[in-house]
């Protein structure tokens, strides 16, 4: 360390000093909860602490030298105790992330914590979703080597973070990618674009199970290909995993497999994106007994549209890691100015269709039931869809300017949602396919229509009013819900918002509640203060096939974020 510091000082004496760049950020969330007899009559969700608060800070230093560059960073986290809805495993405080990275001679070395992804992530991705409380960062060594442009190698070794400790499994992986247009001069200007890659990841976890001879080393490999020509592009990735009995798959010894293929087409003012996915027994964690959001080694992206409006997002979809067949088609059109749909100032139109189904499963033999622990579980064929619909979503969104100062967006949603599998406010979900195949009513399908109208009115320079009117209509789950949001902003510093969600259609009359929420924020550009006060609805957060229910609460909350 001393040597490093003194060499930095030597550099500093050159005529144009280069001290590198230092960046950091900070966030604090604190909530004071109120007992609310209407929302939570038995008080089971009310925290003993009454006040819950958590925060973190990141610091990153980067400096470019004549020989390359060096980066160092760390993060401090503190949970006293985690706010409602956050994974309860995050209790305590400490430095949870620190690393040192340097790049020279086409070699990129990281020691400490890092996040990495191979291809689309089917066999390896570590990442963090801070809002959800997911962080499976690696702690170890990463090497990236680029012998020539267009040829990329990566290698990783380490263990993964789980809360304030590390998982028991050792994670190892290598990845190679070739980009022909960068590699070959003769391809540099070609209209055809081609790249391909190979990756392999494995884990080691000691096994001494009294009943099963569990594999201690589990490997997974993937191959990918990307091809493009003008506005057309195709990306496909195929993965296989050897047998990996785990809590997720009920300790079956069947190998896993999966593939994701996307096709895109773009032209001026038009975009199309299609995706098809088939996943069979692809849960991959560095601890075979892990649950919730813990220790995922891979990422199986949902091929559904991610909704952010409050009411449609009550019915989110998460990839079913044990098996799923999914399709998505999405179209975007730019509506030209002076056209029938676009009006005087133009607009945009979006169409989306997505669905997800079970995969077909057959018994291994006459004596074995589907999914029986200690067996091969079941048989399936690639791309053979099963009989259970998990999810379907059709939506249309239309946005245009109605006048110089008024923009409007209207979005319609039609969602079919399998509550038995995915869970909801009235169904805890989590059933397996066999239960539903034996009794289809257990799927407890919810059929949902929803409409959102959003308007943005620029009242005068720097003053604007944004509003959302939302309606969600269903006979199932918690019934019809309406919502109104008004948000007044004074750029660049202030905003004030008031909203009410009214569950007027709940079958249970005592649950026909209002959920009012007041918020105000002050933003200096890099520092933001926000105060919220009111009721939060019960919601669902999902990541990689796992959903977590966030309980309803009444609280006063303060959030401070700052970046430099």
């Amino acid at each position, binding site marked *: *360390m001393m040597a490093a*510091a003194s060499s*930095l000082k030597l550099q500093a004496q050159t005529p144009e000093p*280069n*001290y590198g*760049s230092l960046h*950091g*950020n900070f*966030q604090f969330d604190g909530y004071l909860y109120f007992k609310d007899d209407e929302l939570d009559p038995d008080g089971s969700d009310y925290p003993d602490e009454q006040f819950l608060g958590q925060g973190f800070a*990141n610091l*990153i*230093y*980067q400096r470019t030298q004549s020989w390359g560059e060096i*980066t160092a*960073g*760390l993060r401090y986290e503190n949970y006293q105790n985690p706010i409602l809805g956050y994974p309860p495993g995050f209790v305590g405080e*400490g*430095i949870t992330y*620190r690393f040192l990275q340097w*790049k020279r001679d086409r070699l990129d070395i990281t020691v*400490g914590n890092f*996040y*990495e*992804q191979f291809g689309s*992530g089917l066999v390896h991705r570590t990442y963090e979703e801070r809002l959800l409380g997911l962080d499976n960062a690696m702690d170890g060594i990463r090497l990236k080597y680029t012998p020539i442009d267009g040829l*990329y190698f990566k290698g990783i070794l380490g263990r993964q973070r789980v809360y304030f400790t590390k998982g028991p499994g050792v994670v190892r992986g290598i990845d190679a990618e070739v*980009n022909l*247009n960068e590699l070959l001069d003769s391809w540099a200007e070609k209209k055809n*674009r081609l790249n391909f890659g190979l990756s392999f990841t494995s884990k080691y976890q000691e096994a001494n199970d009294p009943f099963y001879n569990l594999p201690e080393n589990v490997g997974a490999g993937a191959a990918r290909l990307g091809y493009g020509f003008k*506005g057309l*592009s195709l*990306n496909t990735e195929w993965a296989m995993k050897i047998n990996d009995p785990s809590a997720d798959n009920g300790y079956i010894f069947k190998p896993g497999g999966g593939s994701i293929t*996307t096709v895109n087409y*773009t*032209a001026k003012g*038009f*975009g199309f994106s299609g995706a098809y996915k088939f996943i069979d027994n692809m849960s991959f964690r560095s601890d075979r007994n892990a649950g919730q959001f813990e220790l995922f080694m891979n*990422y199986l*992206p949902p*091929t559904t549209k*991610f909704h*952010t409006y409050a009411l449609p997002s009550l019915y989110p979809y998460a990839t079913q890691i044990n098996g799923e067949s999914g399709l998505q088609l999405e*179209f*975007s059109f*730019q509506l030209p100015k002076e056209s029938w749909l676009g009006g005087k*100032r133009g607009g*945009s139109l979006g169409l989306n269709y997505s669905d997800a189904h079970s995969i077909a499963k057959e018994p291994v033999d006459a004596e074995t039931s589907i999914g029986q622990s200690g067996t091969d579980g079941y048989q399936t064929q690639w791309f053979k869809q099963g009989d259970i619909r998990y999810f379907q979503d059709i939506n249309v969104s239309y946005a245009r300017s109605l006048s110089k100062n008024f923009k409007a967006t209207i979005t319609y949603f039609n969602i079919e949602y399998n509550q038995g599998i995915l869970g909801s406010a009235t169904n805890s979900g989590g059933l397996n396919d066999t239960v539903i195949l034996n009794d289809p009513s257990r799927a407890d399908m919810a059929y949902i229509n929803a409409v959102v109208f959003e308007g*943005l009115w620029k009242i005068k320079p*720097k003053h*604007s009013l*944004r509003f959302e009117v939302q309606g969600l209509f269903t006979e199932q789950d918690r019934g019809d819900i309406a919502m109104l949001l008004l948000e007044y*902003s*004074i*750029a*660049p510093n202030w905003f004030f918002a008031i909203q009410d969600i009214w569950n007027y259609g709940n079958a249970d009359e005592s649950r026909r509640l209002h959920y009012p929420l007041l918020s105000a924020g002050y*933003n200096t*550009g*890099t520092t*933001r203060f926000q105060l919220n006060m009111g009721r939060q609805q019960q919601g669902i957060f999902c990541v990689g096939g796992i959903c977590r229910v966030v309980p309803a609460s009444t609280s006063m909350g303060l959030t401070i974020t700052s*970046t430099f």
Partner: protein
Amino acid sequence: MDQNQRWALLVFGCLSFGLLQAQNPGDRLPQATVKTPEGKQVSTAEISNQGKPMVVSMWATWCKPCIRELSTIKDSYADWQAETGVKVVAISIDDARNSAKVGPFVQGEGWEYEVYIDENGDLKRLLNVNTIPHTFLLDGNGNIVWQHNGYASGDEDILYELIQKLSRGEAIEIH
């Protein structure tokens, strides 16, 4: 002294040295590798606007305020470019769920920005972007001279005033 504390000391050693010179005007876009929507790897060191101001906006296809900001700028982008030569670089932090849709989305919105994807979040972490949209303004020498988190209607006017100042060669207050 446990392992964590030793690490902390090492990193803080480097950082406190950097702090002596914090807020130096030579604060550039950190070096990371991002991808074009066509899949080509690009180093952020190669992203420049040849001596003219540049706006770097971190966004995602699912982020409504980001889309409002970039769509609003789109309406005036041709004028902005003609008057100041500014370039807008839109860097998406979409992950594998949506990264393949970034290209079609941008075309559907009719944006004529330079677009990259920071799929692994490397640049996002280096810039300490906590929430999006997060917009950076770089001067002609590639120094970050201003940044803003969040978007409210009217923020684009403030941004453009700063771009005009830069293009006239005036210094702006560093945040």
